[in-house]
């Protein structure tokens, strides 16, 4: 399992009811079901990923966040709503975050950090839109239409009055390194945040 998923897994209580937005092949849900007696659903639009989920016994629903939204779920239905590496690809990340915390007590989000030093260097030295292992696309064909930095994300959380319960970063090899923890916005490649609404 990817390092970011291993980190997320530690933040999920046994028996949680989980919604995974963009669940891919269902690796995380599969693990949570087996090891943590979690229940819940993955939403996915990739047909091959959907079939893989079905064959491994992960409950998967074909649903497009951009066109269908999440109106079909009632408030506070889930303990945790997850979205790994998909925030930057949705049409309105701010709306999705609102929805995540409407449906769930907590939200867990991971996304690539656009302020990583390699990307900064790429743009500064070449004057071209950065490409990297985590962002292997051209500007015109990338699904990542809303890239942001850690600072941007935290500013949004602040504006929306979300609480940041945990944050961690991993580097390109998806390792949790002390150096990237020290200076995350420069050295972290993937951000992992656990957020909740402010308590009244």
């Amino acid at each position, binding site marked *: 399992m990817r390092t970011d998923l291993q980190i997320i897994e530690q933040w999920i209580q046994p028996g949680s009811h989980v919604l995974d937005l963009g669940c891919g092949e269902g690796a995380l849900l599969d693990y949570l079901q087996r090891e943590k007696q979690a229940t819940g*659903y993955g939403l996915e639009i990739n047909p091959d990923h959907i079939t893989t989920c*079905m064959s491994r016994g992960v409950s998967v629903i074909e*649903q497009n966040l951009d066109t269908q939204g999440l109106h079909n*779920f009632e408030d506070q239905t889930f303990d945790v709503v997850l979205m790994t590496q998909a925030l930057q690809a949705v049409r309105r990340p701010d709306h999705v975050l609102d929805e995540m915390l409407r449906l769930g007590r907590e939200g867990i989000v991971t996304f690539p950090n656009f302020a990583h030093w390699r990307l900064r260097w790429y743009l500064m030295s070449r004057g071209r839109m950065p490409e990297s292992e985590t962002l292997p696309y051209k500007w015109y064909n990338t699904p990542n239409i809303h890239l942001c930095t850690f600072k941007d994300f935290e500013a949004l959380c602040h504006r929306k009055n979300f609480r940041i319960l945990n944050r961690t970063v991993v580097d390109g090899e998806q390792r949790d390194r002390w150096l990237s923890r020290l200076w995350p916005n420069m050295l972290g490649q993937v951000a992992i945040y656990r957020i909740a609404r402010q308590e009244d």
Partner: protein
Amino acid sequence: MPDSLPPDSVGIVAPQTLHFNEPLALACGQTLKAFDLVVETYGQLNADASNAVLICHALSGHHHAAGYHRMDDRKPGWWDSCIGPGKPIDTNRFFVVSLNNLGGCNGSTGPSSINPDTDQCYGPDFPVVTVKDWVTSQAMLADRLGISCWAAVVGGSLGGMQALQWSLTYPDRLRHALVIASTPRLTAQNIAFNEVARKAITSDPEFHGGRYYDFDVIPRQGLMLARMVGHITYLSDASMGEKFGREMREQAYQFGYDAEFQVESYLRYQGERFSETFDANTYLLMTKALDYFDPAYEFNGNLARALSEARCEFLVLSFSTDWRFTPARSEELVNAMMAARCRVSYAEIDAPWGHDAFLIPTPRYTDIFTAYLDRVAREVRA
């Protein structure tokens, strides 16, 4: 006559009639004292009887779902594309049971059967049976076959409703329910189409209040019309367009009222053929069973509450161009399942054939069907 059958066919199969001498109390308040069910089975039941799959048929379906009755049969069973060795419902692994439902006209007790009380055909006196009644009779069949828990109950359209009903009536007697191109309840438009079909039949002068057997006639015109209008709702605008377009039988307009467009003669042919093989009273009964199906009814319309009893896992599939039971109807069902915290997977399959798509193997449909049932098979060690 072909001298060999396709290698992925279940081969030559023979139906068997099972007699049930136990009373069956029906939703309408009447009781059937005894009844017959015609059944076909494919594959072998394993030692712990854990690999059984029940196939539930749709409006005009029957027990002959796969294989051939004779070497010279023109066509195999109605779901042969999905049932057989190596097919999605793999008969090398599963023991597949397919029946003709009560009220049918293919051998199971129905309106055209002899009423033991009168020694005449039941005709209109045959009670209206519901999806729930079918499921009850199917459970009696399961008992007879020594199956305490189905690995899966599978059905498309009206068959999907039976799979859903199984999960509510006998939550502990199935592991999986596959609800394909179905709906948790009919819409007003669905009921309206059924009513047109019924009116076509009952207003045929040869209908004789449903006692046409006594007059040695059948309400041919009515049944034909019913099938024609039904058939339109099974196809999509696009698939009809592709198949027929505005193609004509003659070069020029005839300025008359005979079938000139190919689509007209196709519909007439389908209707005529159907009217020769299907019983009008059964058609009335099946459409009524469709109209009445509404598991949420007893729960003040709250489908999620109805589903809170379900224990099995669900696979729900819809087809993009199905306008009879649209993807939105399947999604309504899936949302209620999720609200009830059922284990459910859902996919909307892109297919141009309208409602009939559930009978036509397309790559994605076959992939999903195969992947899902492979897991079911692994689960029951089949």
